């Protein structure tokens, strides 16, 4: 810039021009990037917009649309009433079932994996490394392989169309044991030794020291499991035939194939909105935990 000041003002140097061109090019590149990001954002958001929009149209209005209408000024909420009062589908029931299933599975999983992770992280016993190694190798087993036998097992136990039948095979998660064990292992051993000298029992130490310290990881695991349960489809579909035990994924499928969705598309979309909303809200509240948790251990696709 010093060079400039020695020249008469108003005279453009080559250097100025180069600078300006570079700035322009940078701005153009930036605009290109934003355009791409906005386009993908619209592709992501559009289905959500469309589902809310469609759910707010009356059935008659929707059926009369030769060309789809993008905006409506008079939203109708009748579909939301309809999906809860319809006689052939029981959306309220499906949501309640899913809640029971989700809470039951997640709570039971926690009760199972926390002691296991604690044993692997802190307790000493013969064959620990061998057992842990075997456990890790189980992570490679795809659910598709074990579903077949689990289906037979649950049938043999007479647990088709029941909550235990839904929940029990969904409890196990090798990966979360691993994740939690890694977290427990990071807690300094001195704490444990001190507690032992004080005569604190293992169980009390686990409950009052380790779990509170590992709370972020436990929260993350809980959220991931809740998402998984809320959306699970394959196992519930295999194991339930009675609509009384349907979860929402299956309920939605039922609505589409035999229930009100066949003739009343806005009604079906209202059900879709109701089913999608809880997780979106959960995600927006726990955004950071969810994204961090998924990047550490989630897989989908």
């Amino acid at each position, binding site marked *: 810039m010093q060079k400039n000041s020695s020249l008469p003002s108003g005279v453009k140097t080559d250097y100025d021009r180069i600078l300006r061109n570079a700035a322009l090019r940078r701005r153009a590149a*930036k605009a290109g*990037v*934003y355009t*791409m*990001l906005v386009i*993908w954002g619209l*592709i992501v958001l559009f*289905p*959500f917009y*469309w589902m809310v929009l469609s759910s707010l149209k009356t059935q008659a209005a929707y059926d009369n649309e*030769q*060309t*789809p209408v993008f905006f409506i000024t008079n939203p109708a909420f009748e579909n939301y009433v309809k999906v809860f009062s319809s006689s052939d589908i029981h959306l309220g029931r499906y949501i309640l079932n899913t809640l029971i299933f989700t809470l039951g599975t997640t709570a039971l999983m926690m*009760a*199972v994996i926390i*002691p*296991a992770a604690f*044993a692997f992280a802190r307790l*000493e*016993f013969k064959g*620990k490394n061998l*057992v842990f190694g075997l*456990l890790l190798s*189980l992570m490679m*087993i795809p659910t*598709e392989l*074990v*579903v*077949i*036998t*689990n*289906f037979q*097992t649950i049938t043999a136990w007479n647990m088709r169309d029941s909550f235990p039948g839904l929940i*029990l*095979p969904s409890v196990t998660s*090798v990966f979360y044991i691993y994740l939690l064990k890694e977290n427990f292992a990071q807690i300094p051993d001195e704490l444990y030794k001190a507690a032992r000298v004080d005569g604190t029992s*293992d169980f009390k130490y686990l409950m009052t020291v380790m779990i509170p310290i590992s709370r972020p990881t436990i929260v993350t695991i809980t959220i991931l499991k809740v*998402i998984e349960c*809320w*959306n699970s*489809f*394959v196992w519930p*579909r*295999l194991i339930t035939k009675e609509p009384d035990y349907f979860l929402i994924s299956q309920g*939605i*499928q039922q609505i589409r*194939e035999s229930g009100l*969705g066949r003739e009343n*598309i806005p009604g079906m*979309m209202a059900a*879709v909105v109701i*089913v*999608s909303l809880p*997780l979106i809200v959960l*995600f927006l509240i726990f955004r950071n935990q969810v994204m961090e948790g998924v*990047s550490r251990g*989630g*897989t*989908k*696709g």
Partner: protein
Amino acid sequence: MQKRKLKAWLYLLPALLFLGVFLVYPLIDVVVYSVEEGFTSVSQTYDGVGLGNYNTVLRDPDFLQALKNTVLLVAITVPLSTLLALFISLGLSSIKKLRNLFQTVYFLPYVTNTLAVGLVFMLLFDKTETTDGLINLFIRIFGGGAVDFIDGPYWAKMFVMCFYTVWVVLPFKVLILTSALASVDETYYKAARMDGTRKGRIFLRITLPMISPMIFYLVITGFIGAFKAYSDAVALFGTNLNAAGMNTLVGYVYDKLYSEGGGSPALASAAALILFAIVLTITCINLMISKKKVHY
């Protein structure tokens, strides 16, 4: 000491019990089932032991159709979604303003119910007696003829399926790649800029090698995930996937296990093991390639 040892096993007991009953035992059992010829849920007995079930499955036109669909889906969506995720993540990491907003929006498909949102996609692409649907409206504007994407020609159905799959898997990939890009040490870029290295070269020589382990991780999980596609297909085409000609390998396994006239766990097991063998082979090939190409 003996007591403490016992206690450790006590802590492990619930987990081992669950894993044993619902993971280890089924794993052995599935192999046993797959060689029991003629075993069905109704008969509960088998005629003989052999590879007959594999033979039946491999000659079943439904299985071959499912195999074709799945392989096509994998071959199209894995490279496409990985590339797209790379572009989006590069874009995301080059901006500061609105970055959080974009990231939040992009992640939404991850937390939505595949079955539920799949119905919206079906609606967008469907062509019914009353309306051609939104996508066909656009096709018409650009001068094309309306296509029935849900009940129409095979390529159209495949297109919807791939489109929806990419939409569903992208959040995970974008998330992983964005955090991989953020973890590249800033000093490399500074040094390159000092040397006046061009942007394209910086990308090829620094960025790409640095994030290659993560890209590779995405390719592997992408292959595995796409081979297991199922609920997306159900959401778009309904539960009778064989009739729609859009069944997937996993769908075939479940259909065999749970068909109306009493399922055949034996055939389902054989099909599941074939699927597992395919996935394992591809993962091994991927791992071998990565040894040569990926910089750790």
